[in-house]
């Protein structure tokens, strides 16, 4: 926890370089799909970072974090549909509604512990999922197409894919820095103390509930930002983006990358999403000598490879990939 140069920092620096250099590379390689994949990665890394603040540092395992992506996205989508395209209205509102939703969920769920906490956060996420399904005016089950991305006047044009990518990257950097400051501040010490030993925190004089709730709201708000970005990226919002399996994906990203580490969520998101893209192709390739033309179908079963991989990380690298890189540091 003490700042120290470690191999993990170099990996993070290398990753940052790759992320910075990606748009020129994608355009040189003539591969716009690559830019789109990485925009998605960067956006989901913000969501994963927000979950890491809550789960990794605060010890609060939210199994409904995709709900905030959905809330942030739907605020943008609904406003766009109603003819309000200004990003100066859409984005602050997306953050504010996510924060309010997190406040309501946190105020109730933080009264419980362990499995009950996980179940309540999941229940709230399912509730908001079905609310979205029921929004007939906004596409219901089919979702809602956004015809006009958020408008920021002359400031930035989000339909420019490169500009949008760099905006997402800058926001990821900003969120990461914010979280780093947070977890090292007095507030962060309280949050981590409560994760480690909540009873002891009370006995030394901390009313931890209010701090944990604040952490919950900050996390939900940052995740709502990821939602607003994702809606602009896909030009589309649908209930699927807050399906509970999406919340599961976020947890996997955080655990895979390394809970309670600053760059873990980013590493986890990059790893999971690149595996998602690369594994099917790799498997088809590997299966070709045995299955001939049928090999392409083998690629559909990529999760058979991903599953054991995750298992290995959870069993043998408790600090995730970031933990492997820094070596054992936590007691």
């Amino acid at each position: 926890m003490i700042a120290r140069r470690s191999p993990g920092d170099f990996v993070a620096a290398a990753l940052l370089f790759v992320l910075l250099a990606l748009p020129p590379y994608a355009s040189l390689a003539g591969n716009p799909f690559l830019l789109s994949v990485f925009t998605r990665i960067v956006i989901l890394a913000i969501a994963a970072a927000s979950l890491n603040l809550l789960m990794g540092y605060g010890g609060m395992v939210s199994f409904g974090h995709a709900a905030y992506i959905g809330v942030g996205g739907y605020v943008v989508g609904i406003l766009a549909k109603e003819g309000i395209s200004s990003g100066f209205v859409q984005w602050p509102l997306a953050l504010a509604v996510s924060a309010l939703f997190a406040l309501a969920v946190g105020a109730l769920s933080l009264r419980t512990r362990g499995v009950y906490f996980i179940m309540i956060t999941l229940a709230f996420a399912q509730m908001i999922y079905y609310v979205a399904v029921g929004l007939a005016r906004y596409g219901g089950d089919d979702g809602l197409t956004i015809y006009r991305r958020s408008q920021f006047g002359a400031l930035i044009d989000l339909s420019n894919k490169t500009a949008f990518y760099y905006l997402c990257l800058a926001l990821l950097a900003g969120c990461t820095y914010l979280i780093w400051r947070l977890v090292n501040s007095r507030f962060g010490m309280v949050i981590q103390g409560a994760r480690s030993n909540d009873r002891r925190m009370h006995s030394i004089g901390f009313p931890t509930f209010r701090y944990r709730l604040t952490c919950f709201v900050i996390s939900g708000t940052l995740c709502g930002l990821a939602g607003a970005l994702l809606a602009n990226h896909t030009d589309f919002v649908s209930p699927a983006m807050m399906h509970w399996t999406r919340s599961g994906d976020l947890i996997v990203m955080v655990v895979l990358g390394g809970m309670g580490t600053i760059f873990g969520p980013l590493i986890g998101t990059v790893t999971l999403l690149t595996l998602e893209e690369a594994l099917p192709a790799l498997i088809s390739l590997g299966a070709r000598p045995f299955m001939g033309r049928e090999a392409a179908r083998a690629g559909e079963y990529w999760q058979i490879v991903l599953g054991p991989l995750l298992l290995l990380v959870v069993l043998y690298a408790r600090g995730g990939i970031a933990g492997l890189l820094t070596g054992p540091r936590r007691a």
Partner: protein
Amino acid sequence: MPEALLEAEGLTKRFGGVVASDAIVLAVLPGELHAVIGPNGAGKTSLIGQLAGEIVPDAGHIRFAGRDITALPVWRRSTLGLARSFQITSLFADFTVLDNVALAVQAHVGHSFRFWDKARCAAELRDPAHAALSRVGLGSRAGVIVASLSHGEHRLLEIAMALATRPHMLLLDEPMAGMGPEESARMVGLLRELKRDVTILLIEHDMEAVFALADRITVLVYGRVIATAEPEAIRANAEVRQAYLGDGGLGTGHA
């Protein structure tokens, strides 16, 4: 008789059919070291739990510094100056020793809705923490991760954390549990020094330590107070001898 700093009156707690505290009356005077002894299952830890606020009594009142604290939550009692240490060591294992104590300091220097400046660079937190550590003799261990401390050092750290909250009164739950003779002697020395500044309620099995330290002793048997008096009077008390010390534990060291 001066007014008590901590006072329990008719404190009663039942767990199912077991009466853990049976109308306990207890008065700890300012400046004294007051020990509570009793055989296993006498309800000593339940008593400290109620005084600290973790266990809600079924009946009775607790007053601290002239104020009824029966209904106050744990953290409020801490901010009023009532600190406790735990029988089962209860620390933040993945923090350093200094971090642990600094966190205890932090709880008492205003709210912690401070999101930006690094807590580990705040002299306001670090200096008093260092002071508390030196006081218990752990000054040289400040940078060590708590999980790698010895058992005896854990107990000392417990005390340092309680001290760091600048308490008027310490509730110590078996600070010498599991300690070797040498560590126990060190703890006795520390407590003897602390009792000059802080009022202490001590629960302890180590009779030698109790009789060496205590100004007054309360004997608890099956949740009931059977005697409160000076050590010599307790030693001579027939009821106490029969109920508790009959097995020859008195004055022979570890009970």
